[in-house]
């Protein structure tokens, strides 16, 4: 199959009389048709294929965001052009497992790993037998769909994020072939984290990872997702050696111009009553990437969900996160830490919906800004009528380390119940000279004192992680990423 071009269907009206087959719309239509044809008869459930067909139509019908769309206020809309990217090659559920070491995150003990490279899964470790025996599923999306379609059907797109990227999440639904499904049955606790690695390779490639996590009642799990880019073009699947992978390196560190890539990623997290879910996303795409991440969290009675997203890569990255507190006792911690440098734009939109009484949520989004970076935080706490005794917090802190960086902050509240505790705060500031003086007055040199204060700024987010090994591995990773800049 030729690699089709991914173009916006609303690019330009086709001039009357021009051959339709040449229009960007038609090219795109054709390429989806070809992609879709491959999916037929691949063991995927009919409902899934129908959902993809509908999502494709929705993608084509929805307009690109405009200046009048408040949900895109302050965003660089010109960066959303979709021309020139390559659609994923269609391999549906045939995953050649090769001996491929996922290269980037510092090591931590994990229960199992799935590693996606390009559009295929290249590596995976089996779940411990004890967990499989208890009904835990940790599998690539198409395999999980083929084997457990009926189980998953009730969860897919049940609570879409819907914070402005509907067009792009529709595209993800239409084209997703990678990503993990984690299902943990009631009462099963998994102590060690599960890891999902995504790496997208080569220039002008596109990827559409989709993650679905379902925790049954009283289940407990931690999922870490790592998103990275690699430079080398994909050889034939399976032909890639460890050495080649190692030589490829990550996109951020090589001298060649950053890889232009396009990613829409979706993660859906479901926590049944009293479940405890920790989700960590580490975004380290190529500095040339346009990435739109969308995550949705649904917490039932007494469930506790912690989501932590770390952002280092990408040229323009938008992350939408919608937490729904659906029944009394549900709690959600929503955290993010970003280091934005160069000309990066990080655009983060959040929604905390308190749909039931006695629910709580706590959001902490921190950005460190260097160079000409631009960050946008737009968050909203919604307390539905009658969601009394809601306890919601929202905080955005921007540490601006450069005269040319810009931080936009739009912390919002919409409250329709009176017996609630809702506060939010937003601050943008530089390194506090008094704090710096205090450290220096103890003999710590300025550069080191500055770094301590910046790492301290990060640590406030990282300290939300209760697993010490994971905390230390990620804290070390953040510090090394910061020092790379």
């Amino acid at each position: 199959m030729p690699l089709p071009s991914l173009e916006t269907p609303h690019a330009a009206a086709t001039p009357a009389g021009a051959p339709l087959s040449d229009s960007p719309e038609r090219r795109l239509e054709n390429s989806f048709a070809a992609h879709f044809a491959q999916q037929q008869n691949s063991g995927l459930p009919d409902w899934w294929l129908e959902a993809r067909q509908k999502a494709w139509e929705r993608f084509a019908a929805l307009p690109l965001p405009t200046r009048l769309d408040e949900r895109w206020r302050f965003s660089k809309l010109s960066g959303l052009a979709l021309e020139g990217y390559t659609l994923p090659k269609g391999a549906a559920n045939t995953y050649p497992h090769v001996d491929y070491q996922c290269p980037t995150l510092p090591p931590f003990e994990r229960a199992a790993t799935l590693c996606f490279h390009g559009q295929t899964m290249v590596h995976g470790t089996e779940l411990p037998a004890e967990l499989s025996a208890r009904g835990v599923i940790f599998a690539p999306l198409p395999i999980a769909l083929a084997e457990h379609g009926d189980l998953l059907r009730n969860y897919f797109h049940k609570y879409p994020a819907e914070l402005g990227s509907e067009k792009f999440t529709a595209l993800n639904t239409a084209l997703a072939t990678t990503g993990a499904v984690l299902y943990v049955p009631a009462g099963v606790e998994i102590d060690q984290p599960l890891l999902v690695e995504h790496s997208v390779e080569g220039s002008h490639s596109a990827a559409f990872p989709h993650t679905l996590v379902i925790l049954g009642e009283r289940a407990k799990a931690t999922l870490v997702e790592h998103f990275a880019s690699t430079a080398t073009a994909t050889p034939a699947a399976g032909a890639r050696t460890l050495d080649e992978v190692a030589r490829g390196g990550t996109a951020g560190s090589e001298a060649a111009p950053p890889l232009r890539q396009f990613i829409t990623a979706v993660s859906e997290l479901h926590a049944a009553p009293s479940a405890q879910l920790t989700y960590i996303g580490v975004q380290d795409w190529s500095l040339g990437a346009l990435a739109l991440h969308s995550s949705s969290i649904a917490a039932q009675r007494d469930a506790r969900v912690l989501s932590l997203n770390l952002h280092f890569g990408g040229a323009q990255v938008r992350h939408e996160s919608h937490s729904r507190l659906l029944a009394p006792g549900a709690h959600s911690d929503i955290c993010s830490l970003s280091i934005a440098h160069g000309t990066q734009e990080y655009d983060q939109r959040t929604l905390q919906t308190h749909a039931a009484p006695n629910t709580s949520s706590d959001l902490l989004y921190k950005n460190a800004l260097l160079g000409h970076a631009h960050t946008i935080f737009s968050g909203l706490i919604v307390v539905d009528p009658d969601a009394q005794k809601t306890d919601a917090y929202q905080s955005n802190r921007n540490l601006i380390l450069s005269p040319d960086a810009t931080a936009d902050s739009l912390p919002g509240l919409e409250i329709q119940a009176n017996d609630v505790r809702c506060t939010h705060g937003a601050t943008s500031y530089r390194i506090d000279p008094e704090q710096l003086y205090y450290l220096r007055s103890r003999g710590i040199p300025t550069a080191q004192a500055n770094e301590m204060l910046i790492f301290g700024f990060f640590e406030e987010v990282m300290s939300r992680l209760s697993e010490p090994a994971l905390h230390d591995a990620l804290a070390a990773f953040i510090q090394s990423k910061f020092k790379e800049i």
Partner: protein
Amino acid sequence: MSSLEIRDLHIAIGDKPIVKGLSLTLRGGEVHAIMGPNGTGKSTLAKVIAGHPDYTVTQGDVILDGKSIRDMEPDERARAGIFLAFQYPSEIPGVSLANFLRAAVQARIPEGEELDAVAYYKRLYAKMDHLKIDRKFTSRAINEGFSGGEKKRVEILQMMMLEPDFVLMDETDSGLDIDALRIVADGINSMRGASFGALIITHYQRLLDYIVPDFVHVMYDGRIVKSGGKEIALELEAKGYDWVQNELAPAAS
């Protein structure tokens, strides 16, 4: 013998003069107290000796062991042996006390040499026990959520760990209850010796019951208006600060 000499020091913030010609020599082994009403420039003096960037030295100098420190950065001064115990220590989120102190100790050993971590923690815990600071404080962010008394005790802990030649204590007694005051004083007294000089800035005579000074200076409107032995502190306590304003200050100018 080490010495810290303040020579005709004039300090301003912006255009506003605060310290207006102050001279004082502190030698190793000596404890000096500076007393005076609020707003006379006591805290400014301490901060400036420690190199606070907000103030301008318009005239005079500070000499440490024969060398001017006027152009030294705050961290250079600290490594040269000056320690300021802050009146209002900064709260620093995300930086643990242990990591902070370790970086400060590390900054004092020659480059390339690694700190002996085991010895460091042993020493740290011993000092913490001495000051009755819970060992859990090592993993807490510096001063964040500490009570007033805890902050002051942690200042003394830092002083004991860094072993400075000269300490400037800025209202260390303010906000302390009597037990905390004893603990703090005990910490300071444990360091007294030929290689340790202290300048204790205080509003009240109370602290001086526990740390007996060799010299007492009364400061008013940016100048020292009277100097003498510890009896001055008692006289000041008895006569009150009106005495300074109405008798000492006119006499000195």
